[in-house]
C-alpha cells in the first residue's frame, strides 16, 4: 500500500523538454510511473520518451486526464506554473526545483490551501512508492523491488535515500518515501503528510528524517502526541551545527537558539517517538518495532 502515488496515478511532467526533465522522465518511466503527458510552453506537439508534450496544463489535462504533476521548471517560473497547474484541476504537485524565492513559496502555500491541494517542496527529491511509481529524482535502484510497510518523510533528499536503504536492509522496506523539502517555508507541513500515513492501512510505522532549522518537527510532535497512533522513529541531522551557519539548505540554520537538534529531539521524544542518534540506528529501531505484535 502507499500514500499519494501508485502505479495507476496519471502523472504530468512540467519542464519535460529541459535536460533534467528529459533524463528524469526516462528514469521515472523505467521505474514504472504512469507518465501520460509533459508540458513546456512553446514545445506543444512534440514528444519526449514517447510522452506527448503540450503548451499548457489545462490542455494536457483535457487530453490525457493527468492528475498529478512533477516540476522540473526553473525557479523564476515556478509560482506562475503552480497557479496554472492548480487552476487546471491537479491536486498533487511535486516541486523539485531549488532556490525559489520564499515570498513566492508563501503565495503558493496559500494558493494550495485555497485549492485543498497537496504540494510537496520546494527543494524536494519527490515521492516514491516502492515498486510502483515515483515523481521526482529519488533513484529507484536504492530500493527493493517490492514495497514494505514503513513510511518515510524526509526534509532532505539524499538522506532519504540512505534511510530508505537502511530500512530495506533491516527487513522493514518502505511503503512510500516522501520528500517534504528543505526550505524555510514548505508548501505542505510535516504534520499534514503524517495524516496521509495515519490513514494508510499499508503503513505500520513512520520514520521522520529531520534536520536543524525551522519548526516543522516541533509542530509535527504536537500532532503526534495528540492524534497519531502509529509508532514513529525520528532522526534529526545536524548535531554539530554551528549557530548562525546555513547548512546547505536555505532552511537549515540554527538562529537565535531556535531550530536546534536538541529542541526537535526533545519535542519528538516527549511525543513518544523513538529517537535514532545516527541514520544506521533507524534500522535497529525499525527491527525492534517489527518484532512487537501489531
Amino acid at each position: 500500500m502507499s500514500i499519494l502515488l501508485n502505479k495507476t496515478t496519471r502523472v504530468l511532467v512540467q519542464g519535460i523538454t529541459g535536460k533534467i526533465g528529459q533524463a528524469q522522465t526516462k528514469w521515472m518511466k523505467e521505474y514504472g510511473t504512469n507518465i501520460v503527458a509533459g508540458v513546456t510552453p512553446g514545445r506543444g506537439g512534440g514528444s519526449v520518451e514517447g510522452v506527448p508534450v503540450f503548451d499548457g496544463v489545462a490542455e494536457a489535462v483535457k487530453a490525457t486526464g493527468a492528475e498529478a504533476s512533477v516540476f522540473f521548471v526553473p525557479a523564476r517560473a515556478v509560482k506562475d506554473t503552480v497557479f496554472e497547474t492548480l487552476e487546471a484541476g491537479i491536486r498533487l504537485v511535486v516541486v523539485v526545483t531549488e532556490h525559489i524565492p520564499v515570498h513566492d513559496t508563501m503565495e503558493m502555500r496559500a494558493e494550495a490551501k485555497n485549492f485543498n491541494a497537496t504540494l510537496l517542496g520546494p527543494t524536494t527529491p519527490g515521492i516514491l512508492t516502492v515498486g510502483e511509481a515515483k515523481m521526482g529524482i529519488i533513484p529507484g535502484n536504492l530500493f527493493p523491488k517490492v514495497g514494505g510497510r514503513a513510511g518515510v518523510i524526509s526534509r532532505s533528499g539524499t538522506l532519504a535515500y540512505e534511510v530508505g536503504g537502511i530500512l530495506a536492509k533491516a527487513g522493514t522496506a518502505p511503503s512510500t518515501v516522501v520528500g517534504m523539502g528543505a526550505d524555510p517555508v514548505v508548501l505542505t507541513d510535516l504534520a499534514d503528510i503524517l495524516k496521509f500515513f495515519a490513514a494508510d492501512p499499508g503503513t505500520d510505522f513512520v520514520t521522520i528524517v529531520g534536520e536543524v532549522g525551522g519548526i516543522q518537527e516541533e509542530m509535527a510532535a504536537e500532532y503526534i502526541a495528540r492524534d497519531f497512533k502509529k509508532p514513529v522513529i525520528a532522526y534529526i541531522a545536524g548535531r554539530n551545527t554551528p549557530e548562525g551557519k546555513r547548512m546547505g539548505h536555505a532552511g537549515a540554520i540554527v538562529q537565535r537558539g531556535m531550530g536546534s537538534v536538541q529542541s526537535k529531539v526533545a519535542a519528538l521524544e516527549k511525543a513518544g517517538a523513538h529517537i535514532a542518534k545516527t541514520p544506521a540506528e533507524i534500522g535497529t529501531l525499525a527491527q525492534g518495532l517489527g518484532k512487537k505484535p501489531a
Partner: protein
Amino acid sequence: MRLHEHEAARFFQQAGLPVPSFAVVRSADEAVGALGHVGLPVVLKAQVLVGSRGKHGGILLASTPEEAREKTAALLAKTVRGLAVESVMVAKAVPIARELYVGVTVDAVAGAITVILGTAGGIDVETVAKEQPEALFRKTVVPPAELHGHEARALARAAGFRGDLMVKIADVLVALYRVFRKSDALIAEVNPLAVTADEALWAVDAVLEVDDAALFRHPEMPKDTLARIEHPIERAAKQIGVSYVDLDGDIAIISSGAGLGMATMDVVGQRLKPANFLETGGGITEELMYKTTSLVLQKPGIRGLLINLYGGINPIHEGAKGVVRVLKERQIRIPVVAKALGNRQEETWATLKEAGVIIVTDITTEAAVDALCAALETRKG
C-alpha cells in the same frame, strides 16, 4: 544577503519611512564635510554586518566637528566583533523620549508574514519575546495580501496607542511591510523606532536582509554578495556554487546533499573530527567535483577525505572523474574513502578505485567512516 544599515536606510527612506538625514563616509575629513548636510549632533555608526554594534563600541555620539573627526577616525581604525570598519554612517542624532520596535519577517510556523509591533525597543526582540512577551503585538498577513492601513491601526491600538501617534505608527508599519514585500526580504526591522517628546517618529536603525534566491529580480540591490562572505573558503565555495561551512577538525567531507552532509558530520563526529560541511547540491559535473575536491583539501592539516554521494539528479560517474584528476595532479596521499550510490554507481566505483580511492558499497555512512578509521590506523602503523 544582509544589507548594511545605510543601504537599508536608503530603501526605508524611499518607501517613506521617517529616516533622520545621514551620509556614509570613509574618512574623518568626509565625516566633517557631511556635517553641513546632516546637522549636529550626530551619531557615528560603524558599518559592519554584525548585531549589537553599540555594546561593542561601534556606535559613538559627536556634538562638535572636532569630536566627529576624532571619533570617525577611531571607528575606522578599529574592528567590531572581528570585522574591519570600512565605512561609517553619520546620522542626525534624535532626542529620544521612548523606544519602540517594528519588524516584518517570515514566520515559519504560519508559512506567512508576521508584522510585529513592540512597546519596548532598542533591545534584542528575541530577548523581549522571552522576558516580556506582553510587550509584543503581532499580525499575520498571508501574501499576496497587503498590510492594510486599518489592520495596522488595529495593531497599534491593540498595543495601547491612541490619537496621532497611533496613526503615525500604523503608517510606519504599512511602509515597512511594503519595503519587505518589494525587496523580497527575509526580515525588515527598525529597532528602535524612536519617539520624541513631541511624538515624532524616527527610524534610528535599519535592518534589511534580502532573500538570495530572489536577487535575480532585484537589480537595485548591491552586487557584491560574494565579498560579504567573510571566510575565504566559504567565499570560494559560493563562487563555484557549492555550500561550505568551516569546522574545527581535520577530516574533509564532500556530500551531494545538505541532509546527507549533516548526517555525515554527525557520524564522522562520533569518532573523528569533521574539518568542514560541504554539499554540492544537484549540480555535479566533472569540473564541479574537481573544484570541490581541491577546495576541501586546501585547508592545512587535513588527514582524510570522505566523499558521500547519491546519484539521483547528479551524474556521479562524471563527478568521479573530477575527484580522480585532483588526486592525480596533486599526488594526494591521505586516505580517501568514497561511498557513491545510485544511478551508474558501478562506473563511478571503477573510476575512483583506479586512483586508489577506498570504495564502500554498503548503504550506511557508518560503513564509510569505519573504512576511513581503518585506513587512518594503517597509515599510523
